[in-house]
């Protein structure tokens, strides 16, 4: 039987993962390698969303062009983030519409870009993971994942195969957490009001673990939960699926002393 060609994946690690929580990137790479992909990480900075959503189209295009060039060699571009994947998949073509030089390349990149979990399930055909974790978790659907990329069932399907993990759905999973990129710092009180509702919904599930596919949302929700003194920990769904939960959860200090 012929071995299938390994899928050559360029990992778009995302600026938040890169700076704040690299373990998510390693979890993503682990999952991709386990699914038979080769993973490479070209030099990268950001998808350009902050500029794009602030109306600075020129900077957004410059950054997008960088990304398009850097990720040209790969079969697939995978990001552990719905909002960054959405930026590449949905908005890069918008940025270059009508530009005969760049539009074909933007379209080509969009075609091969995926959010991590939907890539694993929809492209690699992954239907279970080998991870084990004794916990009750609740999953938040980030807006981009849900509405730009149609990611909803895939993470739940894989989480259901994590031995020992129980999934408790919160009400209003599909409601925004209030992060919105620069929104949360431009309109902090409104963002706070929105995340307070989300925190209440999370707490009402009785879960001890909050999961999502976007680090921005997770930082926002975890930050609020911690400020409120809630006992819920937050992780990126990739960490749980990869069985790499030895890292402290988001915003939790490292344990002192070796085990």
């Amino acid at each position, binding site marked *: 039987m012929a071995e299938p060609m390994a899928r050559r994946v360029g990992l778009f*690690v995302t*600026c938040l993962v*890169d700076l*704040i*929580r*690299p*373990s998510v*990137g*390693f979890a993503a790479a*682990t999952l991709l*390698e386990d699914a038979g992909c080769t993973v490479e990480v070209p*030099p990268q*900075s950001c998808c350009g969303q*902050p500029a794009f*959503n*602030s*109306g*600075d*189209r020129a*900077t957004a295009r410059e*950054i997008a062009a*960088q990304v398009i060039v*850097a990720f040209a060699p790969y079969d697939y571009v995978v990001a552990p983030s719905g909002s960054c994947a959405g930026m590449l998949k949905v908005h890069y073509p*918008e940025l270059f519409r009508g530009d005969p030089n760049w539009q074909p390349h933007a379209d080509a990149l969009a075609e091969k870009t995926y959010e991590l979990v939907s890539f694993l399930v929809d492209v690699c055909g992954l239907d279970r993971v*080998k991870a*084990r*974790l004794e916990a009750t978790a609740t999953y938040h659907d980030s*807006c981009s994942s849900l*509405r*730009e990329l149609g990611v909803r069932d895939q993470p739940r399907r894989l989480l259901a195969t994590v031995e020992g993990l129980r999934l408790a759905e919160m009400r209003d999973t599909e*409601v*925004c957490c209030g*992060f*919105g990129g*620069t*929104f*949360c*710092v*431009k*309109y*902090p009180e*409104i*963002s706070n009001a*929105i*995340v307070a*509702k989300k925190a209440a919904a999370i707490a009402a599930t009785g879960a001890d673990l909050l999961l999502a596919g976007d680090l921005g949302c997770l930082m*926002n929700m975890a*930050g609020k939960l*911690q400020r409120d003194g809630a006992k819920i920990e937050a992780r990126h769904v990739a960490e749980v699926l*990869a069985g*790499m939960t*030895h*890292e402290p959860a988001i*915003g*939790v*200090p*490292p*344990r002192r002393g*070796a*085990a």
Partner: protein
Amino acid sequence: MVDLAPHTATSPWFKDNARTALADAELQNALKFVEANFIARRREVAGQLPEFELLRDSARDIRDHTLAHLDLYLAAYEKRVVEHGGHVHYAVTGEDAQRIVLGICRKLGARTVTKGKSMVAEEIGLNDFLEAHGVIPVETDLGEYIVQLRQEMPSHIIAPAVHLTKAQIESEFRRVHTHLPRDRNLAEPTSLLAEARAVLREKFLTADVGITGANFLVAETGTSVIVTNEGNGDLTQTLPRAHIVLASIEKLVPTLEDLSQLLRVLARSATGQEMSVYTTLSTGPRRPDDPDGPAEYHVVLLDNGRSSMLGGAFRDMLRCIRCGACMNHCPIYHAVGGHAYGWVYSGPMGAVLTPSLIGIDRAGHLPNASTFCGRCEEVCPVRIPLPRMMRSWREREFEQHLSPATVRSGLAFWAFFAKRPRLYGIATAAAARLLGFVGRRWGRFAWLPLASGWTRHRDFPAPQGATFQAQWKSAERGRLARSYVSSAGGQSGKGTGGTDGRDRRAPGPPP
């Protein structure tokens, strides 16, 4: 009396308005109902109609087609109105429309006019203008009547008093309806409604002129369409001597069949009903053998910037059929309500339309106060790409240097690095090390310089200590990611959350 003319919009003070709204306990209580009821009802009724998504496509296409031929449909519409004995008046600006309406009222010697709900009338500040010129307008939609008593703007385009509690409404009725016995019982909503019915019935029967808006104008027949649940629009337009329809030019639809398509998505999107109770098609004044109906029928067609919008980036906004679904689903609207937006139109549709009508310099906050969650676009019956349009406004602001200087410079600083990945890598590695070191003890920051917007309400997680890219680069070629254990994790050898017994080696110290 609150002046609703554009120059007094409080949209520039959106942040203050929002702050006030967030602290308003009664408003927050009222908004909970908006979030719970409207969303559930729409979902249920849409789920009961298998063709709903196809109807949304059809509605969008009809609106697009009409807008692309608006000049011709307007002319066709006008011709039919006149054939039926009606009058058509064109108003370029809000002031023009005010003058036309007043002119008609004066010619008829009108003292009081009843009004069906009309957002266009709010847009041009018609009520204040009429009052200032000796004509008394009486709002007849219950929600509009209530906010008129309170001298407020409506806070939602289809449920004007949605921000009020029963107690607030009762106290308003007691304050104003002084001809009724003081000791009457108004504890139940039914008694409040009965009182409003009786008070307004008097006004209906004695009004000289009735003014309504129009949900749609049908070109095929010269017909104006209003959609209500109360029947107030019908009493407004049937009983007085004259009916004035105040409608903006983009309300046109070509045929009665096109109207049917739009009606199927309007009520479902707005209130979760299959049909509103009263959908009325009015064409011209009473006929010679009509025993009732207005002797005169006037249509005032308002432009107020729409004809220019047709040629620009915000043309799709003209598809809007004013259902309110977008604001019913908006997390920002749920948090602050409609008044915070500072003018007539609120929620996502207000965020896109208001800058077109009163200028982006005054309404700048509105398209900025969005997380782009996309729920609005998801439910819009005519599929307006609302987040994309809000972004277009942000682009215009950026081009015109209207965003605050701090935001611009912050962005420029970030962009400098983001455009240079290698430099970015160095800068972020340094930042991650520094913040990771400082934040190691508690794992998070309760306060960060330059990030007080975040840390006022939330903790900020400390970085793990070395950037991903730095660590990935420092790994040997071909080493598998699964053997990674980060330095911040501090585990040597053993992993928790037992997995599949994978080999774990601690790497060297971070570069």
